[in-house]
């Protein structure tokens, strides 16, 4: 029976190795588990941009699409509410990247209109299939399209995670939108303090 014990110990060590940062997030600490912030996408003005647009800021990134009936507006509202509890200086240290995985319908103009509604810290991005494949693979998330109905509407499946990056672009945090506003605010503040 020594071997199973040993295996369990090994797994425990491996699992423990995943979280090494001193901060206690309410969400899941994923320091070192995923890649640092990096992307090449199209912004709300139709320009090609990279992660340098958020240089020196903490970042919350998540994937969605503007025709999303529930999750995306809920999450953006949650983030906006949490940001509202922060001070102006703290908010200035923070950017929200909303990456649309539905470039067919989400034009830069539409994205701009959509994200403006949730606050100036929210930046809408999208890209070609290759660009989106790159960035979704980096953050271990998938997206896919349902069949079109008669009016040409279709469902888009996408990840529900919000990924937090510290000011140097290192991945730190994975949040879900079932966290209460106060906890999200705590985690955002912790991100900007890192």
């Amino acid at each position: 029976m020594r071997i199973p014990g040993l295996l369990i110990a090994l797994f425990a060590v491996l699992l423990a190795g995943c979280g090494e940062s001193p901060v206690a997030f309410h969400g899941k600490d994923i320091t070192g588990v995923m890649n640092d912030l990096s992307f090449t996408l199209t912004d709300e003005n139709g320009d090609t941009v990279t992660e340098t647009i958020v240089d020196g800021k903490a970042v919350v990134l998540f994937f969605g699409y503007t025709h999303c009936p529930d999750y995306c507006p809920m999450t953006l509202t949650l983030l906006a509410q949490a940001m509202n509890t922060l001070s102006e200086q703290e908010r200035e240290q923070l950017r929200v990247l909303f990456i649309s995985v539905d470039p067919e319908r989400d034009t830069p103009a539409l994205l701009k209109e959509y994200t403006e509604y949730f606050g100036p810290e929210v930046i809408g991005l999208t890209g070609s299939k290759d660009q989106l494949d790159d960035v979704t693979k980096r953050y271990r998330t998938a997206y896919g399209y349902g069949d079109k109905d008669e009016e040409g509407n279709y469902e888009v499946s996408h990840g529900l995670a919000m990924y937090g990056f510290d000011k140097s672009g290192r991945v730190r945090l994975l949040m879900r939108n079932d966290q209460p506003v106060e906890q999200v605010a705590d985690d955002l503040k912790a991100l900007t303090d890192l």
Partner: protein
Amino acid sequence: MWQTLQTALTPYILSPLTVLLCLLAAGGWVLGARRLARQGRAPSVWRTLSFFTGLLLCYAVIHTQFDYYARYMFFMHRIQHLVLHHLGAFLIALANPLPVLAAVAGGRRFPLLARAFAPLRRVLFDPVVATLLFVGLIFFWLWPSVHFDAMLSLRLYELMNWSMLIDGVIFWLVILDPRDPRQARTSGFGVRFLMLVAALFPQILLGAYITFSEPGLYDVYAICGRAWPLSPATDQVLGGVLTWIPPAMMTILGALVVLRYYLNYEQRGD
């Protein structure tokens, strides 16, 4: 057409370790089989076919576009593990690969290496340990919090898949060892039946538990996004059924092979 095939065969995430291990296994078989053939003891076509089918199946589920679906759909992940832990591992073990792979060394002997590995082999091939590990690993990687971490971290994901494959091969090697247990001093056929039964029921229970649980048991697929819009409830039910029924069928298949060996040796008489 060609492009579709190329896309399908391109690994979702390139893993040099996987390529290396699969090449080593395939090369080992080819080399060992040639050495044995020179002594007039070449493995049969069926054994070769079984080995390479098993190996190819395992490669296909972890290092092609299939892997993408296995990462982003729970039920596809269950198919992946079904191949790694049951079907592929079963076919590899059914080919009785150890004598062929050992023949790679030719006449050379490595007494130190053999002595170092002997205790490990004794423990891992012990019927109780092999069964506990076989069932234990299924439960371990399907433990919701462990499953979540394994799906998130590339390192753990690879560890999960390789541990499933290696453990599956060991378990089925114990079950499907074609030698006469009385002479080779391996586990008796009765013991092997008991191993199969002991492994069967926990898998049925786990499969049924997943099938009938409230949806959302494995929320990592919701959080990381599914490959296409499939309802979480359907995904979980499919995954549960795949954990439940095909492994049970593989157990029966294993029992049939053991029964055949048993009858063979019985007929030859004592």
